[in-house]
């Protein structure tokens, strides 16, 4: 059987199937199930600074009516932060003491520089094997230039790296005007990996009630194409490992993404749709396909279809539909 071991997050992984950050891994038993089904690593649910702030707000609302004592609530956000860290610690220690052999990656999403460092240090102390930065600035601020946003990314990343003794990677958004250059420059920091791409919460409009509603939460199978293109373009041109995320709903997609240059793929929606067995389906499917195609190891497969490894690499950068639409028009005529 093909050797499925790979390398991402600066760690050796038993398989290229990584469980992305979600509630899927919020208990020791769930993580055991994911590990038994062949997951290579688990990214734990993100610690969101915004969530902590919202909880702080709600505690103030709840408690201040009864207390009239702001002194007690003045620093309660630290209590909530420390409670989060404690829960992370309990989960990580629970997994380790249960003898479950799977790397655990802590994920953080903050807004202020000091909190990125606070949580990075605390989650490292809690026993996380690596960190994933869930770093994204929605470029909706009219007063914030692209340079300022870039600067924020690099300053934050470097601060966390400086404060951490465990490997740090980032899950990146596609929303950069100079995406290729951004990915390349990020790979030249001490980041050990970049995952393309983060999938964000989106809003939709309910036309009957004329209100904004959450858009579909789970990804659609065709959403992998954006990651495929960019991993294909960047593979072989960056100084750290790449992983793919979003739209991995079958093993074939996972293989395509690895061929484009990903060292591993992150999955979440597929598990929500098909259950924990979906992880095994992916792992077994990849191994079977590799056996059938005489590929012995994942490194052999990684990047075999990137710009350097494929016959028509220019396809990765083609963005207009000209010829395609021409044929489509004929069919409809």
């Amino acid at each position: 059987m093909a050797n499925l071991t790979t390398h991402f997050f600066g760690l050796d992984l038993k398989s290229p199937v990584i469980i992305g950050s979600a509630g899927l891994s919020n208990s020791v038993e769930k993580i055991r199930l994911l590990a038994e089904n062949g997951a290579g690593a688990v990214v734990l649910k993100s610690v969101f600074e915004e969530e902590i702030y919202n909880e702080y707000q709600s505690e103030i609302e709840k408690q201040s009516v009864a207390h009239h004592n702001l002194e007690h609530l003045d620093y309660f956000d630290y209590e909530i932060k420390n409670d989060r860290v404690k829960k992370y610690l309990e989960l990580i220690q629970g997994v380790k003491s249960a003898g479950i052999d799977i790397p655990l990656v802590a994920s953080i999403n903050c807004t202020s520089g000091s909190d990125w460092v606070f949580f990075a240090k605390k989650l490292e102390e809690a026993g996380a094997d690596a960190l994933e930065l869930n770093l994204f600035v929605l470029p909706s601020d009219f007063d914030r230039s692209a340079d300022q946003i870039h600067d924020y990314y690099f300053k934050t990343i470097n601060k966390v790296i400086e404060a951490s003794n465990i490997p740090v990677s980032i899950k990146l958004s596609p929303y950069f005007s100079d995406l290729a250059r951004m990915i390349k420059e990020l790979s030249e920091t001490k980041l050990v990996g970049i995952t393309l791409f983060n999938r964000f919460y989106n809003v939709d409009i309910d036309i009957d009630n004329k209100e904004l509603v959450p858009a579909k939460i789970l990804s659609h199978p065709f959403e992998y194409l954006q990651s495929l293109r960019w991993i294909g373009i960047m593979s072989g041109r960056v100084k750290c490992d790449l992983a793919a995320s979003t739209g991995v709903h079958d093993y074939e997609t996972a293989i395509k993404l690895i061929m484009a240059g990903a060292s591993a793929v992150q999955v979440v929606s597929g598990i929500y749709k098909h259950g924990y067995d979906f992880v095994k389906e992916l792992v077994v499917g990849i191994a079977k396909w590799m056996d059938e195609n005489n590929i012995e190891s994942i490194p052999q497969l990684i990047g075999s279809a990137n710009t350097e490894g494929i016959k028509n690499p220019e396809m990765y950068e083609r963005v207009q539909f000209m010829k395609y639409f021409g044929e489509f028009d004929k069919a409809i005529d």
Partner: protein
Amino acid sequence: MTIQSEYLKERRDQEWRAELRNKLKGKERTNLPRVHMPEESPEERVKHQNLEVNTGLSKEQALVEASRCMDCANPTCIEGCPVQINIPEFIKNIEREEFALAAKTLKQTNALPAVCGRVCPQEKQCESKCFYLTKLKKEPVAIGYLERFAADWEQNSGIMDIPECAPKNGKKVATVGSGPSSLSFAGDMIKLGYEVTVFEALHEIGGVLKYGIPEFRLPNKKVDIELDVLKKMGVKFETNFIVGRTASFDQLKEEGYEGFFVGSGAGLPRFMNIPGENNNGILSSNEYLTRVNLMGANNDKNDTLVLKGKNVAVIGGGNTAMDSVRTAKRLGAERAIIVYRRSRVEMPARVEEVKHADEEGIEFMNLANPLEYFADEAGRVNKMRVQMMELGEPDSSGRRRPVPIEGSETDIDVDLVIVAVGVSPNPLIPACLPDLTVSRWGTIEVNDNMQSSIPVLFAGGDIVRGGATVILAMGDGRNAAKSMHEYLMTINK
């Protein structure tokens, strides 16, 4: 009309009060300016840990201030009092120079008037509802000062009125802890005829009143006199007794206790858990103040020691932070600094405490938040890194939120840091009662009657609220006493 308002009307309709109201015209009363509390000079008071800063109103001042009170038909001030003191009645008794009756009125519903007259945040409670403030937009009647005056007058007279108690009903109840909620509970239950025992883990009675509040704000002797009244009413006090360790609840039940009130407080210090916080020379305000207030560590002759610093930083902006920083100054600090992440406007400390701190030379480093501590080779803190903040949008408390300014970090030299960012509930009682429902934050969950998931166990104060003021805790004790009495009467029918 409720029973309370009927009672208040009846009291207000007494002849002497009607006469007193007619003694001065409304304008004559409202034109009087609010009295100022006399104080020790800052230069003198910073030399002494035990010298009370506020010296109390003179008789003349108290009489003038009492005459400001309009004796309103609808005394809204009482709505702001968690223990429902009949405020106009005690003030009018001062005005007619019946000081003993004023003190007696206070003690009808408040077991600790000399304490409350000193440490209650009246500006947020009774005084915030005063007619002067709400209708005339003038400074409210100084209810707190007058409360202190009446209580002190009685204490200084040497003749303490002992409130009457109902005949013994043969039932025993206990309190766990001897802080304000427990003492208030004990005071009401003994009046109702119960045999009451207060179990205290420490060697001193008084809880936070003794270990938490410095003597320059609340002298221990003032607390002791009020405790003595409770003793004379028949309340028994057991010190060095840890309920759950020295004896279990079951053992106490076997001894005949039918009801328990848990007022074990919030004795667990909170830290920020930032890097370097474990260095020597960084301690909680609980530890710092307990060493000084309860163990006399400010006196070098005593066995208990406390770290003294030249450059002392106190983290926080509440009354505990003010108590700590002012204590540090009295213990010889050259620089005693409050480091607080919001501006002065948002500080939870009483305005009076901030003013006193300012007068005593305390430095205020506002809009600054510690990020990390550094230590010398011996492991003693020698530097702290703070990040400067700016104020953002208001949060749910209505105060503007502190937002870090990136790149604004600065280091300051310190050799002692006191962390005063709040406290958590004492975990001992919940830990020894598995059937007791507690919140995520370790507070005991109670219903509106202060009754917990264990029907014979009632609770109040910090162990329920997480953090409460003295007077709120006392209000809890009173509510719990009323509810426990009703409960025990019902189940024994």
